[in-house]
């Protein structure tokens, strides 16, 4: 279904990417990879994925539309092609998801020339892994309710506080950090920093364990952490505005600097394969009409989400510029959750088995994917918040807060 009415140049690029992905398919991972980057746990996984992203970057599959001055290729409309092809090829995902989908676009829009040159190349190559410092114990969905403080001291800022839900924090060199620089205004009291993490004095990262028993996200404590003012992104008091740029980029308003790969794309074929190899109610699940109906329901939603992304680029078929982009996180995360739940139901008694068990279908994918799916329906603004945002920004209904 890919590659429609592309320019000559884009068609050549697509063919190049396809060929490259065929020739350069990575070796099997040393250990089972998680389903998404935010579940990367081990150094082995990290090294493998970092090497892979670097390889894609060198081949021009990442940052294709970014200015060459910041380590990109300076093209137009190439990245979405690369993303699609990486998805189709079913290669591993790009590990630096926070850097690519949040940090880079935000820095590109709000950063100084020096900041763009310093930070963006490492985002794209994956050499410098980024994490996000937005959530706090008392400010989960309520982003503006930040209490982590930053106080000016000469050319530096002194940061104290506590961030949670920090995916990739244990591997991150940098964090996009929202702090409170004034208690007088809820929104205008926020300021946005690019904060060193790895080995930075006063920063301690404590891994949190997920309901699956896996690690992958963290608490980060700031104890008189010193950040040079040169790492402040945009003006003091502009933190809320900058954070909105970040969240809109993440929610897919932009195609981002690169994405794709991972298991998401293949959910339906995987469900069908499961159904063809599982007995349910004395027949193959693939022959059981209620199961068939459920699988097709999932497939229709998935195709609808894919076609939304396509329609989002056809202006004359979009009544409101943010109507489709803002749905992406909501629909995508619930789509994955419902797929996994259905897989668990189809697997029946075998869904009780953990990935360690040799009899677990698809190496234990379904129950694990189901449990992990809540990471995506909760993180980066719960889906309840997503519905508020859509109701208020797109439908124009009064604010619920």
């Amino acid at each position: 279904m890919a590659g429609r009415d592309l320019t000559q140049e884009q068609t050549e690029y697509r063919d190049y990417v396809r060929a490259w992905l065929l020739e350069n398919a990575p070796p099997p991972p040393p250990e089972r990879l998680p389903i998404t980057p935010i579940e990367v746990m081990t150094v082995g996984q990290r090294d493998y994925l970092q090497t892979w992203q670097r390889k894609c970057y060198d081949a021009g599959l990442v940052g294709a539309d970014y200015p060459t001055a910041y380590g990109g290729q300076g093209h137009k409309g190439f990245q979405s092609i690369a993303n699609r092809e990486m998805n189709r090829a079913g290669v591993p995902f790009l590990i630096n998801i926070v850097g690519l989908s949040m940090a880079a676009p935000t820095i590109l829009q709000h950063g100084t020339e020096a900041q763009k040159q310093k930070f963006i190349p490492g985002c794209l190559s994956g050499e410098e892994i980024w994490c996000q410092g937005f959530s706090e114990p008392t400010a989960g969905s309520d982003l503006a309710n930040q209490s982590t403080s930053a106080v000016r001291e000469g050319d530096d800022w002194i940061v104290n506080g506590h961030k949670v839900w920090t995916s990739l924090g244990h591997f991150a060199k940098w964090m996009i950090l929202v702090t409170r620089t004034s208690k007088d205004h809820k929104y205008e009291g926020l300021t946005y920093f690019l904060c060193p993490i790895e080995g930075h004095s006063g920063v301690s990262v404590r891994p949190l364990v997920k309901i699956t028993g896996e690690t992958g996200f963290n608490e980060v404590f700031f104890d008189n952490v010193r950040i040079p003012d040169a790492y402040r992104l945009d003006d003091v008091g502009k933190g809320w505005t900058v954070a909105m740029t970040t969240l809109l980029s993440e929610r897919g308003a932009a195609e981002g600097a690169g994405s794709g790969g991972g298991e998401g794309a293949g959910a339906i074929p995987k469900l069908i394969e499961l159904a063809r190899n599982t007995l349910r109610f004395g027949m193959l699940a693939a022959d059981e009409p209620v199961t068939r109906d459920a699988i097709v329901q999932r497939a229709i939603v998935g195709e609808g989400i894919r076609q939304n992304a396509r329609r989002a680029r056809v202006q004359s078929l979009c009544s409101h510029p943010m109507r489709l982009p803002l749905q992406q996180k909501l629909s995508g995360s619930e789509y994955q959750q419902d797929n996994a739940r259905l897989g668990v139901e189809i697997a029946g008694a075998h869904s009780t088995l953990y990935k360690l068990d040799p009899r677990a279908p698809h190496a234990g994918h379904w129950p694990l994917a189901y449990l992990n799916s809540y990471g995506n329906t909760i993180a980066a603004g719960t889906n309840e918040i997503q519905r508020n945002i859509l109701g208020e920004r797109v439908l124009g209904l009064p604010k619920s807060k």
Partner: protein
Amino acid sequence: MTNVQTVPRDFGFGEDEAMLRDVAKKMLDDRLPLEKLRSLVADSPQPIYEAGERTQWDPDLWSEIVALGWTGLAIGEAQGGSDISLAGIAGMLEEVGKHALPSPLIPTLSASLVLRAAGGKNSNQIMARIAAGATASLALTDERGSWEPNDVPLTGTEDGNVIVLNGTARFVQDAFKADILIASARLGDEIILCAVDIDASGLSLDADHIHDLSRDQASAHFSGVRVEADSLVSREGALVLHAAWPGLLVLVSADLCGASEWLLQTTVEYAKERVQFDRPIGFFQAVKHPLVDAMVEIDRARSLLYNACAEIDAGTQDSERAARMAKSAASDAAAFISDRSVQLHGGIGFTWEYGIHIYFKRNLHNQTLLGDGVYQRKKLADIMIGPIGASQNEMG
């Protein structure tokens, strides 16, 4: 529409298509505002629901529509049509749905798609009549209301080079507005398609009493209707209908998407104005979130709709899958917003005076037409998973 070409990334929805859609919007906004629609079809329930009369429509408005060439949109230029893409037609039909237009437009376009799939001299002549302003409808459904093209309602017998049709076609859409019926009949072990003028001797219409106020529906009784050779559309009816079917699904889906978007926006506006507990009810998440969920469903249905149009326009193998996905999503999205729009309007939404019910009933009718979501998914399962039993061998 039948020769394979590459499927455009933008669904083939370009400037011409946008212009057609915008013209349709402006014209229907002017000529059929909600007030007009209500006085036209829902002035009082008595004539329709008690006296059993057929609902009104606006023949003058229809003449303008014909003059604008909408009835020829799906017809080749050689037959006097404008041969626009299905994507363009869908855009126009979304506006038709938004205005709940009572008219034979969708049945006529449906007939055109069948004739076009049939091709040949006879079909071309009939299409030329349609392009010139004749209206048409399909008579393909039996008493069981089966949506399988092979369950034909009529039987044919040959008498020289005349074919004689007998039987009753049910659920014929807007039959009382049609000049021509395209009927399917079993002739020996063939399925044939014939064009029959509505005033043909032996053909009589029997109005159904229906809920939907924006169309008529009828049983068409054929008793010894004689079809001349030049009115035989095809002797390969099964093939023709299979080829045309995705297009038929798309036409109804487009109407559903349009009517559903109207219900969404109308309910959103009400939620901004209606104050309860000292706040506009749209403040409350019990109102806001269902409306967001409805928007999400409608958007997926619209995207699937234009994808289906693009696949059909390109004549790809994927047309049936894409079209059934669109109809399934559009039917379910319509069911949900119809339900929420009455509920969230509260008391007033339950009243006849307030127009919501016109759209509610039009959607309810279109949801079942050509098969609801469950039916489409059953067909999709056969395509995507394979027929029941096909997987047996894979069990290791």
